[in-house]
């Protein structure tokens, strides 16, 4: 009789959006989160139209991708967290197999092996963006937190293996972001503060080791950050033009589709990695702050869902997904404004391109599932 009981609880509590709210609730959709996401996407589509040079075809293309991504969100939201947890090891192992496959047989594009063609072309690293935090949360689910030293070692292996496989493609940016999503799970699980400080200190020699492994173009990016004017037409060009675009936008911007930096194609990759600069130029500081506010709202709602979550798996996973989303936002905006090196991370939900958007929305689908299924689970 639990089902009818639940239904009574749901109906009994006044839905915040009236009848529509009730429908969405039935569909396991979290209204505040969905509204936040849609507002980001809407603002993104507005600025994208300008960034793709007012090309209706490319714009509609992106709109279609958004449709696919929202469908993914909706589908994922229907799977209860328990179900996701049971399948987590399989998803993780499957992802690892695909990563090995991509290294041996994958298609080469722009000097890297990232794509796999199994009927549909996709990047297996996208699966790992979700599978790695899921695996961390799965491992910690039944264990008493904070984790002990031995458990931390196992978790570290779970994170490092896929990270190295992806770094080998080579796709350093994605590898680091996936590592971050795993590390966030450990931190949320209660990694001792002493250990965190210790690791931070260790990261200095670690950076030197990393430097040895970096390709020349990656080293160049770091050097360029330190002194962009040293090579204004080469590697420093992106950062210089991007700073001019943002700076010349001022408080209110030059107006939508009126950004001379963006429209005259001084700004490279204006519709993908550097779309934040287009927005800064055309909509100004106020536009950028509005976008950042929306991002913060979504991250905040995600963390709220994490705190409300009934079990360790849901809690850790929801927390990791929300905070990783923040990391994406930070890395892109810091890169475009010249705070950190150019690492090729798109601005989530705004940059042109489909695969990462589907993964992001699927992640938010998990958040919605965790939130809407929580009352069906035993406390």
């Amino acid at each position: 009789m639990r089902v009818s009981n639940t239904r009574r609880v749901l109906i009994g509590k006044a839905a915040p959006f009236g009848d529509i709210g009730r429908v969405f609730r039935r569909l396991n959709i979290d209204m505040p989160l969905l509204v936040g996401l849609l507002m980001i996407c809407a603002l993104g589509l507005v600025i994208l139209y300008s960034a793709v040079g007012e090309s209706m075809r490319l714009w509609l293309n992106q709109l279609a991708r958004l449709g696919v991504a929202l469908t993914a969100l909706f589908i994922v939201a229907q799977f209860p967290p328990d179900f996701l947890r049971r399948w987590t090891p399989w998803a993780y192992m499957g992802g690892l197999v695909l990563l090995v496959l991509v290294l041996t047989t994958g298609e080469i594009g722009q000097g890297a092996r990232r794509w796999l063609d199994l009927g549909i072309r996709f990047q297996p690293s996208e699966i790992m963006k979700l599978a790695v935090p899921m695996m961390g949360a799965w491992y910690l689910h039944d264990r008493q937190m904070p984790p002990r030293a031995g458990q931390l070692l196992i978790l570290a292996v779970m994170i490092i293996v896929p990270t190295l496989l992806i770094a080998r493609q080579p796709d350093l940016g994605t590898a680091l972001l996936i590592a971050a999503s795993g590390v966030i799970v450990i931190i949320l699980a209660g990694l001792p503060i002493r250990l965190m400080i210790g690791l931070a200190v260790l990261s200095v020699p670690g950076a030197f080791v990393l430097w040895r492994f970096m390709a020349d173009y990656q080293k160049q990016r770091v050097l360029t950050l330190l002194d962009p004017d040293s090579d204004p037409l080469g590697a420093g060009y992106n950062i210089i033009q991007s700073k001019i675009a943002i700076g010349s936008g001022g408080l209110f911007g030059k107006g939508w589709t009126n950004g001379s930096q963006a429209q005259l194609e001084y700004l490279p990759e204006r519709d993908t990695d550097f779309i934040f600069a287009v927005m800064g130029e055309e909509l100004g500081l106020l536009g950028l702050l509005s976008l950042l506010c929306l991002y913060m709202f979504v991250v905040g709602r995600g963390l709220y869902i994490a705190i409300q979550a009934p079990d360790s798996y849901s809690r850790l996973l929801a927390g990791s997904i929300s905070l990783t989303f923040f990391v994406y936002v930070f890395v892109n905006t810091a890169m475009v404004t010249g705070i950190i090196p150019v690492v090729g991370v798109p601005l989530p939900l705004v940059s042109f391109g489909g695969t990462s958007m589907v993964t992001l929305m699927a992640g938010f689908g998990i958040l919605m599932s965790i939130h809407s299924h929580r009352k069906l689970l035993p406390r």
Partner: protein
Amino acid sequence: MDILSPIKDHHSERRLFMGRVILASSAGFLLLAVVIARLVQLQVFDYEFFAAQSQGNRFRIEPVPPIRGLVFDRKGRVLAENLPAYQLELIPEQVDDLDDTLQRLAALALIDAEDIARLKDLSESGPRFKPVTLKLRLSEEEIANFAIQRPRFPGVDFQPRLIRHYPYGEAVAHAVGYVGALSKNDLTRLDASQYAGTAHTGKTGVESRFELNLHGDVGYHNVVTNALGRQIPAESPEMLDSLPSDVTPVPGDNVYLTIDLDLQQVATRALEGRRGAVVAIDPWSGDILALVSAPTFDPNLFAVGMTQSEYGELQNNLNRPLFNRAIRGEYPPGSTIKPMLSIAALETGATNLTRKTMCRGYFTLPNSTHRYRDWKPEGHGEVDLHEAISQSCDVYFYEISVDVGIDNMHDYLDRFGLGHVTGVDIGGENSGLLPSREWKRNYFREPADQRWFHGETVIASIGQGYMLATPLQLASAVAAVATRGSRFKPHLVAATENTLTGKRELINPQRVDEIVLSDDRHWDSVIDAMHEVMHGLRGTARAASLNAEYEMAGKSGTAQVFSVAQEDEYDEDQIEEKLRDHALFVAFAPLDAPRIAVAVIVENGSSGSRVAAPIARQVMDQYLGYGADASQ
């Protein structure tokens, strides 16, 4: 160690998690504060500086395409030139109703109705202020027609530009090639920055292979633009002074070809209504004098741009006009290889100048009843090598073939350039096929198919079976006979000329491995027999030398397209055209000091001596100064 602790302290875990979320949020806010501080620094404090910097970006560099080099024949006649033409353009942002505009343009027959969807897509994909080309070339009538209607079409206008023109289009299409619209694919192999202002690029033939010479270097022109990138007139002279200086484009090199337009036209006319090819070479330099493939096409169609259906028609034409038979067509060479094969037989000692064979009209291998038939059912009687070549006796060659062996046959014909590409300076040629035991082992997968049979050697001796050659290879091989072993790489380009300095760069003839024989008399005897083919009383092609004012040497060939059953007669009247034998002919002239070597193939032409030989004669007449024009 209780790794799986049965009792979890939910309350403390919750508290721990809450603490961690607060910790992470604080870190997040700190990072966010850094980004926001940076934005404030850029957009508020440094605003003036960056605004000035972005103003400096108001000058735009526009590419100016270079003028494409011209192509001339060996006598300096223009084969490819650039003509001014008007093209129809549409600026998307100035058009209110794109669909309606395109529909009405189609109604005026200025664009093709079937192209509307493509043009619509094109107009919607680029920046809205960038013109889209609707039609590459407007006729005088179309210009006049549009000029009247122009007020009804805001945002549509015509613009002058240069387009490629081939004055002798069809006659030189397969040698010169053509230019077509620059595609994304082309840009992967070309330097994209050089093509920033170019709409066309060479697609085939000389136009494609000498693209780098013909194209030239792109120039740059500085324009002042408004905030949206649209060009505006410079407001003041000072403004112009502040612009970086323009770069003038460097026009492409002119290219001089070895081909002779007259020969091209004679050969094109001679092949009219047929499928086939003619290749003529200067044996002492490798200069290609004529390279014709029929049916041909009008290369101007590609330069001007075709509608989908026009292109489809060319593509799907069963006679394949776009297919360059001269360098890509692979045919069984038939009896045209007998002179080369005779060299192989003489050199390996498989035969000598006095050996005679009784030809009864057929040949059988020992322990076999299969009859390999001669083209002459009643047989040639007793023949030696000389007569075997001049009368094209198949039985003689069947008999010596077993002694020569397929591998020797392969090695000697290989030295004449058969079985591998000649390296001609326009790309895309095919290699033909020269069979050998090794080839058969590698080519077939089943062990049963990998074995070489004597019977296959027998038919290879008359250029049938697996053996295939291109017309270019045959011309090059007969040229090597004409020079008695000296060989040159066939080529189409004689020189390139810098259009600015007028300096010409000659491309020297390139020698390739000479064929050295143990006994020079072997050349004499083979050339003698080829002379007999043309001038002897029983020569197979004697009709083709009628009234000639010079002496020539040649060899006809008739290659089976399908095999006739053992007891059936070959009756050409009853056979469908496409199943008739291919007619081939190779020749050189004048006999004593050869200046031209020719190979002719007429697909399904039935008879080498009757159909292909007269075409070769016309080409040689023209080149040696006895052409139809000269006799008038």
